[in-house]
């Protein structure tokens, strides 16, 4: 299983626009990606509600996981979205 640890770069956390961008990016991947915070259970990265209710804030580390062909590239793509500060004005 491929895995990535990423620190949430957005100042508002994985919330609002950054969360939408992350979920969209995950849904566009050919493999199913999960996300978890710390020792919490992994949740479906394509689910806006699951991602929001992780409560991942700015500076938190989240763990992304995926299996199968293209998993590494998929994680690479969504990890970049998590790490970026989208400077959400909300």
């Amino acid at each position: 299983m491929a895995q990535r640890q990423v620190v949430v770069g957005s100042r508002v956390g994985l919330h609002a626009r950054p969360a939408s961008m992350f979920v969209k990016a995950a849904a566009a991947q050919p493999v199913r990606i999960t996300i978890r915070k710390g020792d919490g259970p992994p949740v479906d990265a394509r689910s806006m509600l699951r991602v929001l209710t992780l409560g991942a804030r700015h500076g938190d580390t989240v763990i992304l996981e995926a299996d199968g062909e293209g998993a590494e590239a998929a994680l690479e793509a969504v990890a970049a979205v998590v790490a970026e500060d989208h400077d959400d004005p909300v």
Partner: protein
Amino acid sequence: MTIPSDPSVTTSGEPATAPVPSSLQGIGVCPGLAAGPVARMGPRPRLPDDRPVVVDAEAELAAAMAALSATADDLERRAAATAVPGAAEVLEATAMIARDPALEESIRSAISKGEPAAWAIDRAIDAFRALLLDLGGYMAERVADLDDVRDRTVALLLGQPMPGIPERDTPYVLVAEDLAPADTVTLKPDRVLALVTVKGGPTSHTAILARSLGIPAVVACAAAGTLVEGDIVEVDGAAGHVRPGIKPAAAAETNRREGERRAARAASRGPGRTADGHPVGLLLNIGDAAGAAALARVDAEGVGLFRTEFLYLDRQEAPSIDEQVALYIDVFEAMGGRKIVVRTLDAGADKPLPFLTAEHEPNPALGMRGLRTARRSPGVLIDQLVALARAREQTGATVWVMAPMVATAAETKGFTDLAHEHGLPIAGAMVEIPAAALRAADLLRHADFLSIGTNDLAQYTLAADRMAGELADLLDPWQPALLDLIRMTAQAGLNVGRPVGVCGEAAASPTLAPVLVGLGVTTLSMSASAIADVREALAAVTLAECRERAAAALAGQHPA
């Protein structure tokens, strides 16, 4: 933004020790006055008391998914059609909730337990709603998105009317539980005079929408549910008041004066000065790089308070020097040659930080906060000064630096020496503690300038917590004891020819600004929305009149 602790700061210019008894209190999120008849949002669909028995679970699931899909389609259509800034994104995010695989899973599970489609959706949304509410803060404010998906989908399934903005031919004051993103696009700005919501916070959709459209708005007004359809109310979006039972003539007068005020505001430019030309620097309070963008719009003379907490909040460790330099450069470049006063990190009390502040203090407002945190961890302050000096050097900006929560001359010297050593030539102190005001002359032997934070100074002078709504009369900036301390500080500055500004909420009050000038204050720093009103208020009085008003206020006179 916090609950206004200063009841005298109203756009109506009416200072008050307590709200008018008949008025309802909420949080003002977009300043301005408006009066008009109440129109309520269409009611939310209700689940009937009799729950039908499910005979075909597959059919129920298909109906639920079709309704969710139709709701998502509708939201996406609105997203594509809206012209309201920022609305498309919010609508798309809400549509994503309607298409959420986790929501489908929960609905499927509820239907398999015998719930009909509408009930299953209600239950599934409720579970996620509870999770978001538990997270608190801005996460909790997203429950409005969930409720919107629930209401639209349930209304579709039960054949009930779509909830939403009322249709009216004449302007009205919109009263709602809360506004959902879909409502924000159907709302016609020329019809809605003001917004009042029972729920919501400073970053809720209602607040964001109101500010983008410039509509006066009050949120978190718990008693708004008692407002009667068609009754004329007056909404004060700065003070957060809603007054019911207004006569039509009074409402027309309020709207006429507000129209004049807006026209004057839009045309208001130039440096601050009294009618006889005495200069008073009008400066902005900002909290990040985006805030500096308002400088040109309101024609402010610079930034009088740059809060730097945004760099540090929600972090486990302090930001690196390089990271800070990059952010400071962004802000300094936006200044376009104007002065900027940077307040070093003000952590502690209501702004705890894991790497800096004490875990458990019995009385954090009197504990390790502001400059005091540097006693334990001087490295954080030194890094900040180094970063500020580098950003100043690279941009050539006019940067002044000041420390929060300074009590003594020795603390002032410690800070200003440190700032000078690290390449910041102009360094001063905030006056928020009565001791600092009483000894302002001593502080000015080391400080190049002083800046009075009236919110904390009132809290410490009257021994009343800033957030204690019941003690609002004690926190009134017209309290003569507070004005005495402002006068002492300002006079100490005048004696040695060094600037003394005010950067608390009091500076934003058009009625108090002339008093502060009369007390000897040289600059006023406030949020962007207050600049035009304060500029106009100062232009209407001479320095001598300012002094008369100051003397009257010191004598305990509350202007009528």
